[in-house]
């Protein structure tokens, strides 16, 4: 079978998108019952779940810092996820790089000084992989941290951008990611800062600026989506709190599964 054209002469990408169109994005919060915060983010067929535990007391006393919280990031790549390259161990170089990228991205954003001598555990699960894993992982981690109530100075919104000839493409699927020079950019939309730029392939310097700008713009769009997701989640929480506080004795309705989840955890919190 012939390899599909990544960008046809009619400006369509192999999956029917235009260059600046991003894949379908869904942001779900509090999917995990046990975790302090969790989020599942899908970009097209890439699906990543992040769970956050903490800030909590660390079991590993050696790694503690006396003036701030430390981040510990772990990555799970199950075999069914479709990540190429077979099973990866914990000490796999690619995994280590991935987790350290996440750690370095979030360390300056999380207000770690508010939680001295504690640890925040971030666990990333790749549920399904179709390109732009780091982007999905960063976005999911942001939401999971917010869900967990970890104080942060800003959202961190990640996007990927590749270059096909001279056209920048946003949000890459695995086909594009494998064949084109691409960068992953994480931005802090409110302060307009960039906390992460990775580029593992060669790229003409002249094109870099254009791509970076486009990725930053796209990051702002992702930010709007995140705000909406967080707002929805907060509204639900608010409603749940009101119903628990205001309802005398009676159990609230259990119409939807999601509503029930919300209520249960809200109850735990109170």
């Amino acid at each position: 079978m012939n390899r599909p054209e990544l960008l046809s002469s009619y400006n369509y990408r192999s999956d029917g998108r235009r260059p600046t169109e991003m894949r379908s994005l869904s942001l779900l919060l509090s999917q995990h019952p046990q975790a302090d915060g969790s989020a599942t983010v899908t970009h097209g067929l890439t699906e990543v779940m992040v769970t956050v535990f903490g800030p909590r007391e660390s079991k590993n006393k050696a790694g503690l810092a006396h003036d701030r919280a430390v981040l510990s990031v772990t990555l799970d790549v199950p075999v069914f996820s479709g990540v190429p390259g077979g099973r990866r161990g914990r000490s796999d170089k690619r995994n280590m790089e991935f987790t350290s990228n996440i750690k370095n991205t979030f360390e300056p954003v999380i207000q770690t000084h508010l939680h001295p001598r504690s640890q925040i555990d971030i666990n990333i699960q790749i549920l399904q992989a179709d390109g732009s894993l780091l982007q999905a992982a960063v976005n999911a981690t942001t939401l999971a941290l917010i869900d967990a109530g970890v104080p942060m100075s800003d959202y961190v919104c990640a996007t990927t951008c590749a270059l096909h000839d001279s056209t920048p493409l946003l949000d890459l699927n695995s086909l594009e990611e494998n064949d084109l020079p691409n960068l992953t950019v994480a931005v802090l939309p409110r302060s307009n800062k960039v906390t992460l730029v990775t580029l593992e392939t060669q790229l003409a310097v002249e094109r870099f600026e254009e791509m970076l700008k486009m990725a930053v713009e796209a990051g702002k769009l992702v930010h709007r989506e995140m705000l909406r997701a967080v707002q929805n989640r907060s509204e639900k929480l608010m409603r749940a709190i009101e119903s628990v506080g205001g309802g005398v004795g009676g159990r609230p309705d259990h119409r939807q599964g999601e509503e029930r989840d919300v209520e249960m955890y809200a109850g735990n919190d109170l």
Partner: protein
Amino acid sequence: MAEISILKRPRGEASQTQRKFFKKTARGRVVKVLRECYLRDDVGCGIEQCTLCESHRGSRPPISGGGGHNVYSQNHYILPEANTFLQQMDLLESPSFSPAVIVLQTVLEEIRSRSLPLFNRINALMKGEEKKVWVFHNDFMRDTAVLGHENGSLAERHSAGIRKAVAWYNHHLQQTIRSHKVPTIVLITDDTEQENRAKEDGLTYTSIRTYIEGLQDNTNLLDILVDHGDGAKESAPGQKNPTLYPEYWPTAKLTAGVKSGELHQGHFNPNQYNYLEGNVTVPSFPKPLLLIGRENMNRSVQGDVVAVQVLPESEWRAPRNEVVDQDMALQNDDADNSIEGGETEDAEAKLSKKDKQGSSPKEFNPMEKQPTGRVVGIIKRNWRPYVCHIDRTSLTSSASTSIAQQTVFATPVDRRLPRIRIRTRQAPSLLEQKILVSIDRWEKTSRYPEGHFVRTLGKVESKEAELESLLLEYDVAYRPFGKAILACLPAEGDNWVVPPKDSNSAEWRGREDLRELTICSIDPPGCQDIDDALHARLLPNGNVEAGVHIADVSHFVHPETPMDSEAASRGTTVYMVDKRVDMLPSLLGTNLCSLRPYVERLAFSVFWELDSNAKIVNTRFTKSVIASKAAFTYEEAQLRKDDPNMNDELTVGIRLLNTIAQKLKAARMAAGALNLASPEVKIHLDSSESSDPVDVEQKELRETNSLVEEFMLLANISVAQKIQEAFPHTAVLRRHCAPPKTNFETLQDILVKRKGLSLDVSSSGALAASLDKCIDPDQPSFNTLVRIMATRCMLSAEYFCSGSVSRDTFGHYGLATPIYTHFTSPIRRYADVLAHRQLSAAISYTPLHPVLHSKAHIEQIMGNINRRHRMAQMAGRASVEFYVGLALKARSQRGGVTRQVEEDAYVIRAFRNGISVFVSALGIEGLVTFKHENKYDPNLYTVSLPDGTGKDVTIAVFDKVRVRIEVEKDRNTQRGKVKMTLASPIDSTNL
């Protein structure tokens, strides 16, 4: 910046738009692949009157409907299936084909997966403005996409998608166009199944043939139409054609066979002397595999990649020592009936009978024994349009007014190709014309391939037709440069000058001002694209500073521009006798980059400081501005140098250069460089306008030729070292591999047996030395002849990317240098342009464009320019040959009297029924054939001819003979042919 958006889709849709399939990886594992697809509503239909799609058309203008059809309305669009494109591309490309075409995205993808070249041709059609083509992305459109979960095979889904698209169009147009003149969408299909389904769905459909027949202006188009298979069905309903050729093996079996080593894969290369023989060079055998007979060649055509099965060793044999001419052997074949061909059977039967007589095992030289094989399958066809003549004898009716459909033979100009059977209505008017013919298919029941007429090139022997046919045969791009390319030229055009010196201007930045230097150029007379100039002067310390200044083409041609990609695809300028096909637009080639005298020009300069022994003390590269002081021809420069009265600066410079060049040459020869010969002749044109009566003379070489050559070599070598140092992975270099020793075996054997001379081929130095010793005092040009033959045993030099081959194979065998590149002719060679860019980056003048960092990219360019270089050489030679033919004609008819031209010739190969000779005065090779078989001794390379008195005259390879040369027009094919007959030692007219 384009608007950024997120495509949202409901969760439920995912199951429909995800495409799941299984893929086998290179290691043999099966992996499930999931891909998603986004369905859109904003796909433009491309119909001009449509009001709904206006907003999402993008940059392409919509197309208006076509008219001029008897059946369909004034405003209709055709929507062909993939098969139509795959078979009828010539038709669609024809300028007289004007209907508006809608190409479905799924159709386009199908074409892409079946044939990439065709896909590219369609893309070119869509880019051009002459054709009305619109691509409708039906697979991205919500209403027309055929989703993965629908049942049926891939093919069924595909054709269902096409019907769905047509139905959508009908519905869509009803909605958007309120007037009663709704355009018709006509589905073009040749598939009965599809026709039935379309009928059920109530769609308008037709076959391509009926469609073209219904067009009002269709005479040209009907001929181009490829008759796919139907013809055979009609013509022989009951009678079954016997199979002439074995069936090809299935593809899976072929790939498996090639992988396991049971089959061998290679390019098919027919024997130009004997159409019933061909060979295939494969890596696993030192000698090429020999394919004998039609059945073993099994429908392969020159250039095809074939899979060959090797026959048992008992059947291995040497190539036949006989000339078998297709035109002669097959002249009685009937084009209409491929099975008969009584004469043909005879020709082949005769040959096999001869083998059976038992003489054959002794008759061939055991040293020449080659493995034999048979073709069991074609890996890849390499068919292209061929330049042909119509065979007059194959016409059933040659009345010039006849428009009856006839089946005729088209004989390709290239004698290695088989005759092609075509059906045409205009056969009589095509006689005496050169025409272009494409092969469509070659059935196992048909002796000849079947093809179709594409277009005519012009009258036979008219210079335009011959020129165009040469360009086509050798795949030279000769169209004028397009608008986009010309837009890359400086806006000032002819008036562009180097601006006044200002270190901030783009031209002067980082350039050295060498305008005061006494620089001159030395070129052949009439040279317009002067790309090199030289200078030399004595330095105070006694050393000599020599400089080579090359036109700075890379200043004008920037990477990744239309001009650059055109130059990369042309690869080289092609020189024909009366025409030059430029690589770069002539404004650059003959003006802005040409280092004309007294004009300031931008240059790329190489300076050497050389000591008195011509050893390099120091090398320096710089961009510069020069003003040449004179443009000499070789002859003028020579005269000036030899004239003791001239002592001006220029002359002194030339003398200085000459002394160094001689030392350089001596050093090169000592290192083992080869002095090879190739027959080079010069064609005298009477005037540039008519160029009719012409004459031929051999090119003369002067000292100054060698002067320029030495310095160009030196520059190339210095540059090669520099760019290889700077870019070890991607430097553009040129190499000449040492030829395998087996290549020389035959020549060595002939030399030992005929002349008692030996050839030492252990190294280039040894070869050069032993070539020098190949002297026959009686025959002064014997040495040249041996050199020519030795040259033919060698491999050709090639461009390569330094990262792709191992370091120890960089060497240039012929020049005996460890590293070499081409730098000195950027106007006419693309490799030089790349070398300029790399050198410019190596001296930190400009940053290297990122594509020049990519090995894959460089390799791809190298592959192309190697091919173009070869083609250009062959085209040039063919053009010389054509003019030699004309010259001979002129010479023999000079003064109104027909005289015979007689020339000295040397035998280079002997056959049982002929000899191949080389005429050095004309630089051509010819074949003398005898009507009868003669005594032939393959061990001694001799053939004996009866002289009528009962005695035999023996002619051996290397013998000097005298031949009569005449140009004879082949009666059937109109192909001008140089015919030679032996005049002495024996007259062969009656033999």
